[in-house]
């Protein structure tokens, strides 16, 4: 006779879920820091790229403080405007049910990021380390990598690890590209995007909020690049006749109805047999990162390869203790599934951009900004559990990160350097 297994404590389940989302964020940030510290040493900082984020003003290191400030402000306003317009177009397309077009576009942008930007960064690394690889091998490997990546993004039933790995790589590549922007523009852009995120999610007319409500009303997936952590299953789960659904997005539930709705099954767009979703609070907000590659210095006309990545911002739901015990009761019948924390790819990108930019100054700022971002992520999760509403993931982390960067650079560095020089503290 099987004993009743001890229910997992909240530390094991909730902590495991949080760790499973913080790990990929940390990996993405870490790899961007490494890329930045390897590749941006040799290049001069004045090699600017022409993109949509610098069309208003291209920074010059000899400008005065106010010139740079105004120019950066202008750049970021233009960028946020473009992002807003594109998000509204996305909402319109979603409203008109052009989801297949959106999916193809998502696959196409993944192809561009992995193929072109991945290839370029591979070439940079090749040149830096003088790796004697021949072009046949390199192109073959790149081709394979790209195609499998596009498949992993497209197909919902690829191996979870492969999909997660490719999403992290895509986030890393786009974040590296963003660190090539001029400095002031990058910081203003981060602040502007977090304010935009705040507005787009919480204001009633915000595009992301509209998108969420549309998807909720139709009970559909939003075609987007979303990182989904592996759901934490109870360890004693044995006969389970239904495939646990891995939908990208689920309906929000409130309070009491959660327990009853655990037992309901519904079929959905994703080809799963029975979708039983236990969902506490899932809210989606999305915004679009629009980046264009251009060849400025060569004099060739701009090769605009519009690369739009739609990402869903905080789509998180925490495991509530009550629902979990209910699930354990249902174990014997084999129903019930666990939700998993999902984080939009744009969050990965902007966190990594912040840390990458901090790495361009010194590693001390990297540590400070990393701690700030993780703390911000934790605060956002707590706020989410508290408010049970759609909340954006960018503002708290990014604003904390920028604050910590400024404080470290202006105050802490002087202190630590003086301490080290006088051999008080290393």
């Amino acid at each position, binding site marked *: 006779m099987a004993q009743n297994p001890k229910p997992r404590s909240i530390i094991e389940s909730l902590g495991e879920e949080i760790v499973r989302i913080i790990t990929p964020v940390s990996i993405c940030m870490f790899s961007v820091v490494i890329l930045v510290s390897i590749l941006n040493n040799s290049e001069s900082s004045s090699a600017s790229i022409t993109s949509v984020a610098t069309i208003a003003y291209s920074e010059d290191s000899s400008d005065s403080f106010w010139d740079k400030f105004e120019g950066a402000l202008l750049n970021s306003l233009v960028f946020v405007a473009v992002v807003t317009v594109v998000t509204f177009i996305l909402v319109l397309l979603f409203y008109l049910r052009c989801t297949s077009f959106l999916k193809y576009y998502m696959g196409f942008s993944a192809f561009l990021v992995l193929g*072109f930007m991945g290839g370029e960064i591979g*070439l940079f690394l090749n040149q830096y380390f003088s790796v004697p690889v*021949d072009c046949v*091998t390199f192109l*073959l490997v790149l081709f394979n990598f790209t195609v499998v990546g596009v498949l992993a993004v497209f197909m919902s039933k690829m191996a979870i690890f492969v999909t997660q790995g490719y999403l992290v790589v895509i986030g890393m590549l786009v974040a590296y590209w963003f660190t090539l922007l001029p400095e002031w523009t990058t910081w203003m852009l981060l602040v502007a995007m977090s304010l935009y995120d705040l507005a787009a999610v919480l204001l009633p007319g915000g595009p992301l909020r509209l998108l969420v409500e549309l998807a909720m009303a139709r009970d559909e997936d939003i075609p987007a690049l979303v990182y989904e952590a592996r759901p934490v299953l109870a360890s004693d789960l044995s006969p389970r*006749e239904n*495939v*646990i659904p891995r939908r990208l997005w689920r309906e929000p539930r409130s309070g009491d109805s959660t327990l009853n709705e655990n037992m309901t099954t519904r079929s959905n767009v994703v080809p799963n047999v029975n979708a039983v979703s236990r969902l506490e609070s899932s809210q989606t907000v999305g915004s679009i990162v629009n980046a264009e590659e251009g060849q400025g210095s060569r004099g060739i006309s701009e090769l605009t390869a519009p690369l739009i990545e739609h990402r869903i911002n905080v789509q998180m739901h925490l495991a509530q203790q009550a629902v979990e015990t209910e699930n354990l009761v249902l174990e014997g019948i084999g129903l019930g599934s666990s939700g998993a924390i999902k984080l939009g790819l744009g969050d990965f990108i902007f966190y990594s951009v912040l840390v990458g930019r901090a790495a361009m100054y010194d590693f001390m700022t990297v540590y400070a900004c990393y701690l700030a971002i993780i703390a911000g992520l934790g605060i956002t999760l707590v706020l989410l559990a508290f408010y049970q509403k759609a909340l954006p993931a960018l503002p708290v982390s990014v604003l904390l990160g920028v604050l910590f960067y400024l404080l470290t650079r202006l105050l802490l560095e002087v202190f630590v350097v003086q301490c080290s020089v006088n051999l008080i503290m290393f």
Partner: protein
Amino acid sequence: MERPREVEVENNNNNPSSSASALIGGGVRQQWPTIDGPLGLSESDSLWYARNFFIFGFFLLPLLWGVNCYLFWPVLRRSTSFPHLRPYIVRSAIAFSVFTAILGSWAITFIVGGERLFGHTWDELVMYNVADKYGLTGWI
């Protein structure tokens, strides 16, 4: 416990909707063909994936074979399970190892041989020179 499992496999292949009752009645642990276990594909869905990954791997995509083997690792490990899936996975594994051996030996020959072996074509083939010649790094 072979027979109940085979019955269950048959059930799954023929009629996925009845597998639920068969399982609850029999209390047999269902075998999951993918590495993700209950989060992954069911047996009936897997055939499409296994076959298509195998076929598309022939379009110069050996990584698809590798992903196929990784995704269906339980099928590879247990040699008596999933009779419909196993041929594709085994062939994918063989093809992947053969291709990797060929590509690896070519790459190692290229690296180790260097100019002694290839002469001036080594400089023409090596990637960083190709990138410089065609200006491939000027995009960013």
